[in-house]
C-alpha cells in the first residue's frame, strides 16, 4: 500500500495492524457456507438449556435470532427499549424482500443476486458473506410463507414479485407497502411462541447501556429498566447485538425517533472495532422537510420508482405548477442520464442526481429542495385501481403528511438519511472482535459495502437471524458453558459503576440547553459535511465542530428529573452523548477515505460526468476503527474479488 494515499490529516488517527476474516473457508464460493457449517462444532440438544444468550433488539434480525435460538433449546434473554418487541423499526420497511427464487424465469440466480449486491455496494463488501446471503435468501421466503406472512399473490395463488433499484430482474417479494411489518410480525409471533414455551424471556422497556467483558469475552450487559430506572447486570454465555443502524446521528432520518447507537457504541468503547462508519445511505424518495419542528422524515418506498417517473423543470427557477409544465420542458433526469436503468438506478446514484438538479436551481417545492415523482403516465396506462392496489397505503401516507393528493399531482420527494451500511466489524461468523459478542442485521457492517440495494435489508436481517447466527453461535457456545460471572466480579462492578456514574453526570450538568437542541445541531453538521457530498475541507471543519459541540454538551445540557423513574429526557441524553462521539468517527472515516465509492461521494474524486470515482489501488479495504480514548486506530481488512470483476460501476 502506497504511503502517498495517507491524507495529511493523519494526526487524527493512526494505522494499526491489518485484520483478516479468518473464518470464511477457502475453496469455491458456492461451497464455503456448507464447509463452514460442516466444520462448526455442534451442541447436544440436551446441553443447550445450560447455555444462555442475551439478545439486544427485536427487529427482524434480533427477533428471528431469539426465536430460532429458543426453538433450538438455548436459554434466551431478550431486551428492547420499546414497550413490546413488535415495535422495532423493521416494522416500517415498506417495499419488499429480495430472494433468488427465479420464479419469474427472468435469468435470476443465486450468482446474479450475489453479483448485483457486490456491484450495488460499489465493491466494498466481502464476497463470501454476500454469496451466503444470496444462498439463504430462498430459505427466508419459504420460512416466512410457512409462518403465514401474507405476501402479495397472483390469481393462480402463486407469489407475486416486483423489481427494485439497481437490478434488471424481478426478485422482490412484497406485502403491499408493508412488507417489513408483515415479516416482523412473523418473527415476533415466532418469538412469542418461544416465550410461551419458556425458552425466551422478553424484557421490554429496557435499554442496554454497557457491555460486560470478562477475561476478554463478552459475558453480559448492563441494562436500565426504563420504567423504574433500575440499573442491573445481566449475564450469559454470549451476547448478540441486533440494535439496528445509527442514522439518527443525523437527527432527521427515516429511522424511528428511538433508534440509537448506544449498544454498538458502548461495545465499540469496550473493544469491538467499528467498520466503515461513514457509509450511510441517503434514500432518494422521502417526503421533503416541511419546517423547523420536524421530528423525523418519512420514506416513500423505492418500489414507487417502478411506476413513478422522476423529473424537474428544464428551466431553473420555473415556478409553474407541475401540470402547467409541458412535456418538452421537463427533464426526466434519471431516464436521460441512465437509459439502461432509468428511474431504477441504485439509491446513491438517484440521490446524488436529485441533489445535483436541486443545486442547479431546478428543485421544486418550498426551498427548492425537491423533485417530482409523477404517476400520471402509470395511472393513464394501468388505471387508478391498479396503482391503488400496489401503493395505496403509501399514497394515503403521503396525503396525510403533505395534504396533497398524489393521484392528482406528482409527489415531491427529496433524499433523506435512511440506513447505515457501516456498523460493528464482524467476521464470517458474525462475531465481533470481542469473542462472544455477535452482531447481526443493520448493526453490523458486513454485506452491503458502500451502498445497499433496495429490499436487501430485510433479506440480511432475516438471513442473519434465522439461518446464519444460529449455526455460528452454536460453534462458539459448544466451547461453553463459560465460567460463571456475577455481580461481585470486578469487571461487573467496574461496568455497573461506570454506567451509574455516567447517568449521574448527565443529570448533574444542570446547564441551559435541551438535549434535542444539541441533537439537531449535530444533525445539521453531519448532513452538511458528511452527507451526500463530502470534501476534505468540510469534513475537517465538521470534526472540529462536533468536538466543540460535545464539549458544550457536557458543560451546558439540561436533563430534568431523576434516574429512578421513567425519564425520557435522560434516555435521549445518553443516546445523544454517544452520537456526539460516533459523529466524529464518521467524519474521520469519511476524511480518511480519499476516494468516492457508493454513498461516499468525495467531491475531489469524480468522473467528468459526475459519477463516483473509486480508488481500488488504495482503498479496496474495510476500514475498522479501534477506540482508544485518543485518536482512533485504523485496522484495514483488505478486500479480494475473485468472482466479481472489480470495475467501474455503470448503470448507463
Amino acid at each position, binding site marked *: 500500500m502506497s504511503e502517498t494515499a495517507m491524507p495529511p490529516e493523519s494526526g487524527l488517527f493512526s494505522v494499526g495492524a491489518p485484520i483478516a476474516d479468518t473464518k470464511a473457508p477457502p475453496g469455491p464460493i458456492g461451497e464455503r457456507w456448507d464447509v463452514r457449517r460442516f466444520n462448526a462444532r455442534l451442541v447436544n440438544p440436551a446441553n443447550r438449556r445450560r447455555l444462555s444468550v442475551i439478545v439486544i433488539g427485536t427487529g427482524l434480525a434480533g427477533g428471528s435470532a431469539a*426465536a*430460532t435460538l429458543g426453538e433450538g433449546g438455548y436459554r434466551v434473554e431478550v431486551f428492547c427499549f*420499546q*414497550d*413490546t*418487541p*413488535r*415495535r*422495532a*423499526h423493521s*416494522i416500517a420497511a415498506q417495499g419488499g424482500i429480495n430472494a433468488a427464487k427465479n420464479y419469474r424465469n427472468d435469468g435470476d440466480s443465486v450468482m446474479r443476486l450475489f453479483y448485483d449486491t457486490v456491484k450495488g455496494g460499489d465493491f466494498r463488501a466481502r464476497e463470501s458473506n454476500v454469496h451466503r446471503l444470496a444462498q439463504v435468501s430462498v*430459505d427466508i*421466503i*419459504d*420460512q416466512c*410463507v*410457512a*409462518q*403465514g406472512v*401474507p405476501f*402479495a*399473490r397472483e390469481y*393462480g*395463488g*402463486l*407469489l407475486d414479485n416486483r423489481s427494485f433499484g439497481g437490478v434488471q430482474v424481478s426478485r422482490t417479494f412484497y*406485502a403491499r407497502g*408493508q412488507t417489513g411489518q*408483515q415479516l416482523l*410480525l412473523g418473527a*415476533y*409471533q*415466532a418469538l*412469542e*411462541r418461544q*416465550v410461551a414455551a419458556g425458552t425466551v424471556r*422478553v424484557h*421490554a422497556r429496557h435499554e442496554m447501556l454497557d457491555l460486560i467483558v470478562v477475561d476478554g469475552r463478552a459475558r453480559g450487559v448492563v441494562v436500565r429498566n426504563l420504567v423504574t430506572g433500575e440499573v442491573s447486570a445481566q449475564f450469559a454465555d454470549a451476547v448478540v447485538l441486533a440494535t439496528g443502524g445509527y442514522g439518527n446521528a443525523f437527527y432527521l432520518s427515516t429511522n*424511528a*425517533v428511538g433508534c440509537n447507537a448506544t449498544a454498538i457504541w458502548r461495545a465499540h468503547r469496550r473493544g469491538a472495532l467499528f467498520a466503515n462508519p461513514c457509509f450511510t445511505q441517503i434514500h432518494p424518495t422521502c417526503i421533503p422537510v416541511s*419546517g423547523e*419542528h420536524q*421530528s*423525523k422524515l*418519512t420514506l416513500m418506498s423505492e418500489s414507487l420508482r417502478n411506476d413513478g417517473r422522476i423529473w424537474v423543470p428544464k428551466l431553473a427557477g420555473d415556478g409553474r405548477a407541475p401540470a402547467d409544465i409541458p412535456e418538452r420542458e421537463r427533464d426526466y433526469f434519471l431516464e436521460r442520464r441512465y437509459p439502461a436503468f432509468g428511474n431504477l438506478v441504485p439509491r446513491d446514484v438517484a440521490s446524488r442526481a436529485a441533489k445535483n438538479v436541486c443545486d442547479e436551481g431546478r428543485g421544486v417545492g418550498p426551498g427548492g429542495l425537491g423533485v417530482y415523482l409523477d404517476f400520471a403516465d402509470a395511472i393513464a396506462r394501468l388505471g387508478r385501481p391498479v396503482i391503488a392496489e400496489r401503493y395505496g397505503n403509501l399514497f*394515503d*401516507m403521503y396525503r396525510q*403528511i403533505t*395534504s396533497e393528493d398524489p393521484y392528482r399531482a406528482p409527489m415531491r420527494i427529496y433524499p433523506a438519511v435512511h440506513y447505515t451500511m457501516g456498523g460493528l466489524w464482524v467476521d464470517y461468523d458474525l462475531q465481533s472482535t470481542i469473542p462472544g459478542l455477535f452482531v447481526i442485521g443493520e448493526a453490523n457492517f458486513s454485506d452491503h459495502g458502500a451502498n445497499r440495494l433496495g429490499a436487501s435489508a430485510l433479506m440480511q436481517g432475516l438471513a442473519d437471524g*434465522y439461518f446464519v447466527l*444460529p449455526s455460528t453461535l452454536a460453534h462458539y457456545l459448544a466451547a461453553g458453558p463459560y465460567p460463571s460471572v456475577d455481580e461481585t466480579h470486578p469487571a461487573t462492578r467496574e461496568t455497573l459503576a461506570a454506567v451509574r456514574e455516567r447517568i449521574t453526570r448527565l443529570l448533574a450538568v444542570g446547564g*441551559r440547553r*435541551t438535549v*434535542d437542541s444539541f441533537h439537531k445541531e449535530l444533525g445539521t453538521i453531519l448532513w452538511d459535511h458528511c452527507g451526500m457530498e463530502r470534501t476534505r475541507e468540510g469534513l475537517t471543519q465538521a470534526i472540529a465542530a462536533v468536538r466543540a459541540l460535545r464539549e458544550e454538551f457536557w458543560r451546558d445540557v*439540561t436533563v*430534568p428529573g431523576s434516574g429512578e*423513574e*421513567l425519564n*425520557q*429526557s435522560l434516555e435521549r441524553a445518553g443516546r445523544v452523548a454517544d452520537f456526539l462521539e460516533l459523529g466524529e468517527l464518521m467524519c474521520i472515516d469519511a476524511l480518511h477515505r480519499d476516494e468516492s465509492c457508493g454513498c461516499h461521494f468525495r467531491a475531489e474524486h469524480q468522473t467528468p460526468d459526475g459519477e463516483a470515482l473509486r480508488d481500488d489501488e488504495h482503498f479496496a479495504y474495510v476500514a475498522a476503527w479501534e477506540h482508544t480514548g485518543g485518536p482512533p486506530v485504523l485496522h484495514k481488512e483488505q478486500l479480494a474479488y475473485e468472482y466479481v470483476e472489480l470495475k467501474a460501476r455503470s448503470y448507463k
Partner: protein
Amino acid sequence: MNITLRIWRQPGPGRPGHMVTHRVDDISPDMSFLEVLDVLNQRLTAAGEDPVAFDSDCREGICGMCGLVINGIAHGPQASVTTCQLHMRSFADGDVIDVEPWRAGPFPVLKDLVVDRSALDRIIQAGGYISIPTGSAPEAHSILVPKDDAEDAFDAATCIGCGACVAACPNGSAALFLGAKITHLGLLPQGQPERDSRALAMIARHDAEGFGGCSQIGECTAVCPKDIQLEVISRCHRDVVTALFHHGEQQEGPPEDQTGGNLASGPAGD
C-alpha cells in the same frame, strides 16, 4: 396557531393524576400532534419543569407505539390515522384540546400518557402464531393461497397492536385485536392445523387479562387506524364456536381455562 392543551399528568403507576393546562403558542398547521408535544416539552424543559411523558417511535403510523385519547377519541378526530399522523391542520386556532392516556383496566398508566400494553403480547403468546420451527418450511410455492384470501388475511394482519380499540370500547374489550390475528391466520392454509386450539387459547387469555367481552358496539373499528373491520370479531366468534363444537365431537372437552370466555357477554367484572 395558538392552542391550549389539557394533559393528564400522573407521576407514576398507581399514583393519583390530574389534568394540567399547558398553552402552546406559535405552532404550524403542518406539525404533527406529537411534534406539538415535542415543542411543549422543549419549553417545559427550558423552564425547569417536568416534560410530559408519552410513547412514540416510528412516527409514520406503523409501529403502534403512540396512542393518545384526544378530545375523548382514541387517536383523535381524524379517522384511520394514528396519533403521530394527526396534523394540526385538523384543529383550529385557539382550540382547547384534552389529551389523555388509553384508559382500560388491563392497560395501567406508567407515567403521564404512557401505559403498559403487555397484555396484548400475552394474548399473542397464547396462540397467535403458526408453529413452524426455523428451517422446516416447505418450498414457498408448494402452498397456494387464493388471491382474495391472501388479500383478506393481509387486511387483518395490518393491525399494529396500538390498543386504540380497547381504549375506545365501553367494555374495555380487545376483541378487534384478537379477531384480527385469528382472522389473519385462520384465512390461510398454513393456519388451519392450529385453528381450533388458537381460537380457544387466545380468547381464554384475552379474558384472563381482564379485557371485557364484545357487545358489537363498533367503537373499536371506528377508531382503528388501520381500518380493521368488525367482521374479524364475527370470524373470531365463529372459530371459537366451531372449536368448542369440535372439542365436543372428540368428547375431550375443552381444558378448564378454555371455556370460550366472555364470548357475547357484557363488560367484564368491575
